[in-house]
Every structure is written in structure tokens, then in C-alpha cells.
């Protein structure tokens, strides 16, 4: 029993170490003006070289650990954002980048906007700025990794129609 516990502890430590050192990211724009997206791409250029931290941009949600979201969630992209989130395997994390992703920003109150990313999917780290500089985005990633290392385990979240607010005046599931 005791040996089992130690073994489990060591295994958990190895898993956490691997997760902290290899965050593969996928990038989704749910209605941004592209300013934040350009900054995210700048983060991946040789000047900032995110690969030295193990960050790698993946095309497929199935390969990714971190979903980097930009922009307010428009009603059209809400379903797609949820679908991408559901396609990612556990454990998964979300970073919301930019003022619009935090609260809707300049688009707050627009008829076609759901609000920030956290209105639709659970968010782990918020990176403010309009747009945030690459340093700020790297800082956001490092904060997320610090959270992981601190043993804040990500609990699996299952999205249901009830937990995700539907756009006003539109029936859930038909948006």
C-alpha cells in the first residue's frame, strides 16, 4: 500500500514535469480583429523562439494541450469554439489573449457578441492588452505552467447545453 502510494506520487511528478515542459498549443480566433493573432505569431518567430520552452504550434486540436483564444466570441463562432474545445484530449488548458477575449473589449454589448471567452468555455489564464506584446503572451504561458507545477490539477469539464449560455433569441443547439 505504502509502496503503491510512493510509486503513484513519483508517476504524478513525472507526468507534471512532462506537461510543464511540453505545452503544445492550438490557436483559434473567435472573432478578433487579428491584432492579437499577429502578436501570437510573433511569439513563435525566431526572435522570441517559443520552442526553447517546448511550445509548439499544432494544427490539430487532438494534438494540443493549450487552446490559445483571441477575440470576443461571436454567435457564429460559439459552436465552433465549443467543438474545438471538446475535440482536445484531457488534460487541456485555455489561455484567453487580449482585451476582447477577456470581456468583449471594444465589442462589448454588440448584438452579435457572446462576451469574453469565459462565457463559453472555462479559461485558465487571462492575458490583458490590446494587443498584448509577445512578452505578455509568454508570461501568460509561464503563469499557466507555474499553476500546473503548483499542483493545481485541472478538473475535466464537460460542457452541456445548460452550462453554456445560448445566444439570446436563439434556441440552444440551433445557433
Amino acid at each position, binding site marked *: 500500500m505504502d509502496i503503491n502510494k510512493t510509486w503513484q506520487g513519483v508517476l504524478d511528478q*513525472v*507526468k507534471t*514535469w*512532462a*506537461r510543464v*515542459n*511540453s505545452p*503544445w498549443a492550438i490557436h483559434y480566433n473567435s472573432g478578433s480583429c487579428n491584432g492579437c493573432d499577429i502578436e501570437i505569431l510573433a511569439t513563435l518567430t*525566431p526572435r522570441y*523562439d517559443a*520552442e*526553447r520552452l*517546448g511550445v509548439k504550434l*499544432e*494544427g*490539430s486540436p*487532438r*494534438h494540443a*494541450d493549450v487552446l490559445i483564444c483571441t477575440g470576443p466570441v461571436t454567435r457564429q463562432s460559439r459552436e465552433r469554439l465549443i467543438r474545438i474545445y471538446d*475535440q482536445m*484530449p*484531457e*488534460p487541456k488548458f485555455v489561455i484567453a489573449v487580449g482585451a476582447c477575449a477577456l470581456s468583449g473589449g471594444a465589442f462589448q454589448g454588440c448584438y452579435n457578441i457572446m462576451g469574453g471567452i469565459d462565457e463559453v468555455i472555462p479559461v485558465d489564464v487571462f492575458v490583458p492588452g490590446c494587443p498584448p506584446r509577445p512578452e505578455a503572451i509568454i508570461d501568460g504561458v509561464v503563469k499557466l505552467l507555474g499553476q500546473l507545477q503548483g499542483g493545481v490539477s485541472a478538473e475535466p469539464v464537460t460542457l452541456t447545453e445548460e452550462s453554456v449560455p445560448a445566444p439570446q433569441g436563439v434556441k440552444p443547439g440551433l445557433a
Partner: protein
Amino acid sequence: MNTLVAFLTMVIFPGGLFLLFVGMMYEWLDRKLVARFQNRIGPRWFQPIADNVKLLAKEEVLPEGVHPQLFYVLPVIALSGALTAALYVPMFGFEPATSFNGDLIATIYLLSLLTLSMGLAGANTLDRYSLVGATRTLTQLFSYEAPFLLALLGPALIAESWQIGEINDYARDHWFILTQPIGFVVALIGLMGKLELPPFDAPEAETEIVAGAMTEYSGRGLALFHLGKGVELVIGLSLVAAFYLGGLANPIDFVVKTVLLLGFLASVQALMTRLRIDQTVGLWWRYGALLVLTQYLVVIIVEGTIA
């Protein structure tokens, strides 16, 4: 005692753990070299280890519409094929763990298992990106395989043996890169096609088809395919080094020659842009295969005149 030795051969050296580790180290070296050529710092030395451990500890999503058994078994077949091939290769400069007459052909087909499994894995899912990736993977398999095989058979013709160990011994005092330079280049480029490295990465072009045949794979399956590729990189490099660069006599020999070849591969990766799949096929069949066949003709004529 024999069972113990056989077990160690399969699990530790040169079969299992050792080869996985060396595969990951070579993958890191490749990524680091490309990063340095691009003026970047590049990944840390344990990066592939962290990547693979993370993937192994992740959830494996079973997509809708796939054949479940096939989905789970294909990555295992791919990795085991690559690991089995290592038994016939003079890994790390030591004698091959086992050999029989004609093991060169068996090794090349074991190495193809990885590509074949990847193609089947892509065709197994309903995802359109996977299907396009699978088509391209299999198209590329049919284009590079023949020139690669022909290029490796060149030294075998001269050494008059189809046994990798014997060719390796013969190559120690016959540097085939001098007598068969075309074969060397074709074998090296064929290896790049086999591993789907740039400029031959059309099957997994992330700017067009997400991740090719691997799009629907997550967690363990993806990790096993990654490990298989790393193992194949080491085996391919040691095959080319053993055949063309004066054989592999000892561990230092092995490291120097394979790392030299890897440096060459990395510089080509950093220099070239991606070829379209039809350009890849054209390159192999129009130039690769024909050039190697021409060299065969020269080799046979020269051999006949001397003998």
C-alpha cells in the same frame, strides 16, 4: 542463459529502451540543428522525452467512425516494426544482434511498416484531412521506396552479399561513397522521404492538411508513431553510414558518421521549401530511379571488365 541474453537484446540493447532513447536524442539533435540554422536557440535536450511522456499520459480520444481495434493496434505495429529492424543493423557499431541471408530486404520492409501503418491509420478515420494525408503518405511510399531500395542494393551487389553485417564488414575498406556517389545521394534523400522530413513533408503539411494522416491521433497512439519515427531515423542513418561511409566498426565511428549525416539532413531541411506531392513523385521516378539504374549499369560493366 540464452533466453536471458535474447530478452536483454530485445528489451535493452539494441532493441528496446536504448534505441528509443537514442531515437529521441537524434530527434532533438535534428530539431536543435534546424533551430540553430534559423538563428533560434532551439529546444532543450530533454524536449522529445518530455513530449513523449506527456503524450503517453494524455487521454486517447477514439474518434467516431473508426475501426477501434485497427485504431489501437496500428501504432503498436509501426513501432514494433521499426524496433525489430534494429536487430539486423550494426547498431552503435557492434555486430548485428541476429542475421540471416537476405536480411537487407527484410529490414527495408520492416522499416516500411511504419509508413504503411501511418497510411492505414489515416485511411481508417473519417476525417478528410486524414484521408488526404493517407493518400499522400502512400503515394510517397510508392515513390521513394524503389529508389531507396535500389540505392542500398548497389553496395550489396559489389559486396556479393545481401546480409547487412557482411556488407558492413566489406565496406570498412571500400568507401562506396567514392565509387557510387549517386547511390549515396539517392539513399540519403530516400531516407528523408521515408521520414517525411522537409522538403518531403507534403504528407503532413500542417499549413494545408492540419497534420496529415495523424490528425485524429491523440495521446498514446501519437506518441508511439513519434517514437517509431525517431527509431527509424537512427536505423536509416546507420544503414546509410554502414553502406556508404566505410562501415561502422565501433561506437565512436557510429556517432561521428551518423551525426555527420544528420547535420547534412538538417541543413537540407533548413534550406529547402516543401515540394508538392506530384513534384516529389516526379523527382523520385524521373531522376532518382533512373540515375541509380544508370549507376547499376556502370557498376556492372566495370565489374565485368575487371573480372
